[in-house]
């Protein structure tokens, strides 16, 4: 590793009206290292990268690239100096090919003004083979898996001559296999002399991949450590500022009556293909059933059918013995089904509603929140004040719009609302996605508390550790089917990972179906 500094940021300060996003942040990244920046949501890690990439002008401080001060604070200046950013949300044109996407905006030109398609293909092929990216320049983006799309983003940055690559939460959308492949690529890039800055909140990844780690908390640098000389526990402590329970412990489940029974359930997607095919599930009172799977293999649709948001084409769903197949969401809710939705901003909250209004969403039509068609504002407010108190929601003001809450507090608000009132069945879909470590601990303990109070819990998560820690039983979905089922605590990450990509696994049902993955775009790309 060279001792030269690729990036030196000195005393960077960025002030937003309500917060100091970066408070005199110093960041040193050596040339040819993988440098991770970790921190909770709102710790300022994205802000410092936006400052480096020129998306946000800092209020103070200086930036040096290879010892020279960066002139100008626009992305164009940063790109010229060899900084490239792989965004968390891909910016690709679905209907263009890989090569076309890579060169978009900096196309090679033949003659005066003709697009040189051959040269772009060649350049992409060359970059791809140099770092083992296995990209076909002529493939359309819409046919690629998420993992491959990310590689296109990486090639895009390399094509523009980036020597410093910034990757913002690159693993959130990937399967375990894809993550492993990404790490291989990133190491190859580092060994070829490129410098990599890697933003994440996942501690395992940091320890596995990074050379050095800058930990941020509340807009400041809380510590710089070498990955070889630290542990997960220490990192978590620096991040949160206190000791954190990384893995909740749970007692043996006390099983009760079946609450959710799903049998031979199928559903058809927009294009007429089956998104769910013959699903059989049962969740009993006092039990957590975890559903693992790569995103896009029917988990979302399964949740939607169970909660009444999507029609089933065949099969049945019953809740506490009552048939709910193709009933309205309200009828399902009124049977005591609570639902933490996958995408909280799209489904779980009305951002323009106040906290108080959001805290009754779904129960607003029932006593005591309304009677004879009129809202009972007093009761709605008391309810909000109680939940804000019980769940320590911030800010502690029921009249603040939900859109003004931090991501963690938005999720806590939904959890608070859905947990309240003692549901018989809780459908928790990606309950900790994008949530701080401290809040994850809270959500996990709350889920288990609900379980121990006798609720049936259907947990859908892309985080394998989450599934494995919380579940009493684990079902794996692939291509719209349940392809394997395991007892909780008796299965390894490796084994689950294989089942998730359609490989055969031991199954409690005796029928392993790894054939036919209808319309599963994510699964098809995972090789």
């Amino acid at each position, binding site marked *: 590793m060279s001792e030269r500094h690729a990036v030196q940021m000195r005393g960077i300060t960025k002030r*937003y*009206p*309500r*917060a100091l*996003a970066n408070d005199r942040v110093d960041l040193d990244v050596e040339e040819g290292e993988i440098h991770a920046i970790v921190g*909770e*949501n*709102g710790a300022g890690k*994205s*802000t410092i990268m936006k400052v480096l990439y020129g998306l*946000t002008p800092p209020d103070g401080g200086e930036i040096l690239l290879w010892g020279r001060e960066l002139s100008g604070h626009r992305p164009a200046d940063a790109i010229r100096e060899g900084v490239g950013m792989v965004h*968390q*949300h891909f910016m690709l044109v679905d209907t263009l090919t890989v090569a076309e996407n890579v060169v978009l905006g900096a196309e090679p030109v033949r003659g005066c003004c003709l697009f040189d398609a051959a040269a772009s293909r060649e350049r992409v092929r060359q970059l791809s083979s140099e770092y083992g990216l296995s990209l076909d320049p002529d493939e359309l983006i819409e046919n690629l898996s998420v993992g491959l799309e990310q590689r296109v983003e990486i090639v895009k940055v390399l094509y523009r001559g980036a020597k410093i690559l910034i990757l913002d*939460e690159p693993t*959130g*959308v990937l399967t375990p296999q894809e993550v492993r492949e990404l790490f291989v690529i990133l190491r190859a890039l580092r060994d070829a002399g490129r410098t990599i800055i890697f933003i994440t909140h996942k501690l395992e990844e940091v320890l596995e991949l990074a050379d050095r780690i800058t930990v941020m908390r509340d807009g400041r640098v809380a510590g710089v450590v070498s990955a070889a000389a630290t542990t997960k526990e220490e990192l978590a402590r620096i991040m949160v500022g206190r000791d954190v329970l990384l893995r909740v412990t749970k007692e043996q489940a006390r099983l009760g009556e079946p609450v959710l029974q799903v049998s031979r359930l199928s559903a058809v997607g927009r294009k007429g293909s089956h998104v769910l095919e013959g699903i059989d599930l049962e969740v009993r009172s006092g039990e957590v059933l975890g559903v693992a799977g790569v995103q896009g293999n029917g988990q979302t649709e399964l949740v939607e059918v169970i*909660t*009444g*948001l999507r029609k089933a084409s065949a099969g049945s769903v019953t809740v506490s013995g009552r048939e709910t197949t193709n009933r*309205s*969401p*309200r*009828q399902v*809710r*009124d049977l005591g089904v609570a*639902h933490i939705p*996958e*995408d*909280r*901003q*799209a*489904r*779980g*909250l*009305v*951002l*323009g*509603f106040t906290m108080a209004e959001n805290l009754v*969403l*779904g129960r*607003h*039509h029932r006593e005591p929140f*309304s009677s004879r*068609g*009129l*809202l009972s*504002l007093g009761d709605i407010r008391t309810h909000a004040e109680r939940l804000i108190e019980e769940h320590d929601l911030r*800010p502690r*003001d029921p009249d*603040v*719009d939900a859109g*003004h809450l*931090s*991501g*963690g507090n*938005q*999720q806590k608000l939904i959890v608070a609302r859905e947990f309240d009132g003692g549901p018989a069945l809780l459908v928790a879909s990606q309950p900790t*996605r*994008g*949530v701080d470590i401290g809040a994850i601990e809270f959500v996990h303990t709350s889920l288990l508390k609900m379980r121990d109070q006798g609720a049936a819990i259907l947990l859908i998560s892309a985080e394998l550790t989450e599934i494995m820690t919380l579940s009493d039983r684990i079902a794996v979905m692939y291509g719209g089917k349940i392809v394997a089922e395991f007892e909780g605590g008796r299965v390894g990450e490796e084994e689950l990972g294989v089942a998730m990509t359609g490989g055969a696994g031991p199954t409690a049902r005796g029928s392993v179906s790894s054939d036919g993955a209808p319309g599963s775009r994510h699964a098809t790309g995972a090789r």
Partner: protein
Amino acid sequence: MNRFARLSQLLSPLVAVAAAFLVGGLVVTAIGENPFRIYAILFRGAFGSIDAIGLVLFNAVPLIFAGLAVAFAFRAGLFNIGGEGQLYVGAFVCTLAGLALGGLPAVLLIPLLILASAAGGAVWAAVPGLLKARFGVHEVINTIMMNFIAVGLTSYFIINMLREPGQMTPQTSEIALAGHLPRLAGPLSRIGIPLPQANPLNFSLVLALAAVWLAWYILYRTNLGYEIRAVGMNSQAAEYAGINVRRTIVLAMLLSGAFAGLVATNEVMGFRHRFLDNFSSGLGFMGIAVALLGKNTPLGVLLAALLFGVLNTGALEVDIFTDVPRELILVLQAITIILVVVGNEVFARRAAAREGRAAGVPLPATEPSREA
């Protein structure tokens, strides 16, 4: 917490109005007139006498109804461009009932005609509402088409079948006297406000104020209003919460159309006492401007309608006493609206920038951090 946003909500229309007067002044200067003189005449025309103020209110009343119609639908995420058609149908149904039910006493007929006006508008708005709820067809297109149909059909019926006997004017006969809304001049002069007997201001003003209250009450105090606002802000979340989105859309359109139909209480029951072909000449469209300026809130609609009432009334005076055409007032109104809309956007971006994120881009679900 969001005091900045709230303050800008309040201030931006005021700033826009002030700026519009400035730009309007430049236009006046450009055509060789003294803006101060013109504005003085404008405001004298609007506030110079009790009679003038009465006219301002009279002109504001239909705009309040039309504005409420647009604002109410907007709360459900619907853009009701069909106020014009809805108010024509409301007025038509009201007139038919007023012609047919001549035998009834006023205590019965007046409430009946009010209901008929609202029902006419509601039915007309329900059609695009149903098409939207059932087939997902965009309401903008259908409300506009329903305007053409309403104008064309009422015109046909008035000219060919319901024309007042022996008259060239395309209008119906007068509705029953018992269906006339009394003018306010009488009661007002009894409490010492000398509004001339000839002033057309009538009890429809009271209905308009009641409608403002009702719209607010429905939106913020009832279950239905909660559901309407939820659907308007995030229909996916509304669906998740068990709200019947389709039903809510239809109900919101029905109520929106009812507000538009109530324009007839002023135009038919309170003023003309008959249906005059093409009487509205764009009141329904002015309602869009009123709702925009009023930020789609009931109280805002009231204030914006009053401002437009002032401008329309003062415009007459400007027309009579100066060389500046009354169309200048249209220019002024249009500039105000443009500035309000632009102002909204600018303030929204500023507010977003202060929070450290790009304007208009919703926060992605996977990165909830506001990093601020």
